[in-house]
């Protein structure tokens, strides 16, 4: 019960942050795909950097065990196809699953439409699962992380990702300032 309350609190904070970033607004999100608006990339990069540095330093200072975190397994081909389908839905609706909840919470009808589509999609995949299961489990690669893929130490990967992320954010900031 306590876990549910904590999860609920984190969920509300997450939605609030998304709304503050303006991610409940479908044209803003779709703008990312046309390279008109870089809000999505900025939110994603800053979230990734915060989470990565938080996990690394939290682990280093003994506050959490990074190994206890669940890393989803990689199934290359089905996830590639799934990513494309997801991206198609994202650009068509201008919302992703999380932001559709935010959009609905802030009273946008697009949010309700996207969530309806989301649940229909989940239901269809669930019903068809016995047929698509062999594909779903094809090309397994286990838990694939950047350090496993490159063979580099964790700290080096963190530094490289930070440099890339911060450079991209700086580039976006410069681009926006130039307008």
């Amino acid at each position, binding site marked *: 019960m306590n876990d549910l309350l904590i999860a609920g609190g984190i969920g509300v904070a997450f939605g609030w942050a998304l709304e503050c970033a303006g991610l409940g607004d479908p044209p803003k999100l779709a703008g990312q795909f046309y390279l008109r608006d870089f809000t999505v990339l900025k939110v994603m990069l*800053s979230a990734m*950097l*915060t989470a990565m*540095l938080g*996990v*690394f*330093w*939290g*682990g*280093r200072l003994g506050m959490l*065990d*990074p*190994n206890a975190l669940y890393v989803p397994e990689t199934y290359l081909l089905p996830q590639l196809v799934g990513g494309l389908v997801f991206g198609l839905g994202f650009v068509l609706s201008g919302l992703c699953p999380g932001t559709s909840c935010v959009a609905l919470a802030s009273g946008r009808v697009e949010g309700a439409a996207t969530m309806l589509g989301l649940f229909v999609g989940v239901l269809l995949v669930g019903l068809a699962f016995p047929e698509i299961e062999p594909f779903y489990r094809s090309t397994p690669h286990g838990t694939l992380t950047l350090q496993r893929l490159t063979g580099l*130490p*964790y*700290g*080096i990967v*963190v*530094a490289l*990702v*930070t*440099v890339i*992320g*911060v450079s991209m*954010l*700086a580039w976006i*900031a410069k681009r926006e300032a130039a307008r």
Partner: protein
Amino acid sequence: MRLVRGLGIGALALGLVAPFTGSPTRTQQRGLDLDSIARAIDEGSDHVSARQLAEWIRDRRPGLRVIDVRSPAEFHDDAIPTAENMPIDQLAKSRFAPDQNIVLYSQEGAHAGQAWVMLRSLGVTQAVFVPGGLADWREEVLSPLLPANASPAERARIADLSHYFGGAPRVEGTQDGEIAGAAQTGQRSRRRGC
């Protein structure tokens, strides 16, 4: 804008310092590296005899850390000199520097062997254990049997080591109960090989 720049610089600093702080976990990869464990067991590099340990302690081997994995009560009752007490549940929470030579022992060796596997799974590879535990220590160091057919130098070496730790060697040919030198009581014969 200044806040954003500050956050960016902060993130960059934290990220760039990361490679120099070591691993955030004691285990680079969770789980057992079964190949290296099998190799260590095959080569015998997983354990050390009680007599070898005694020589290490006497010679003050650098980085030597003798760890008694039994309960504090047992440890206070009797322990190998220079040992520190660290029951199994504490062992998993402890940190070990890579330059330390860790020697684990228990009463008869089984728990120390299990502790060795535990440390391996935590990524600690510089540990060994005493297969016969404290019982071996008593038998091989405190009251070792001086073989009748050994050279005088060899017998003197074993006896010296024993005397260093306040033990008393037994001479082969005498009864088990008859001990050369100081009286040693409470020493029961035990089954070997565990």
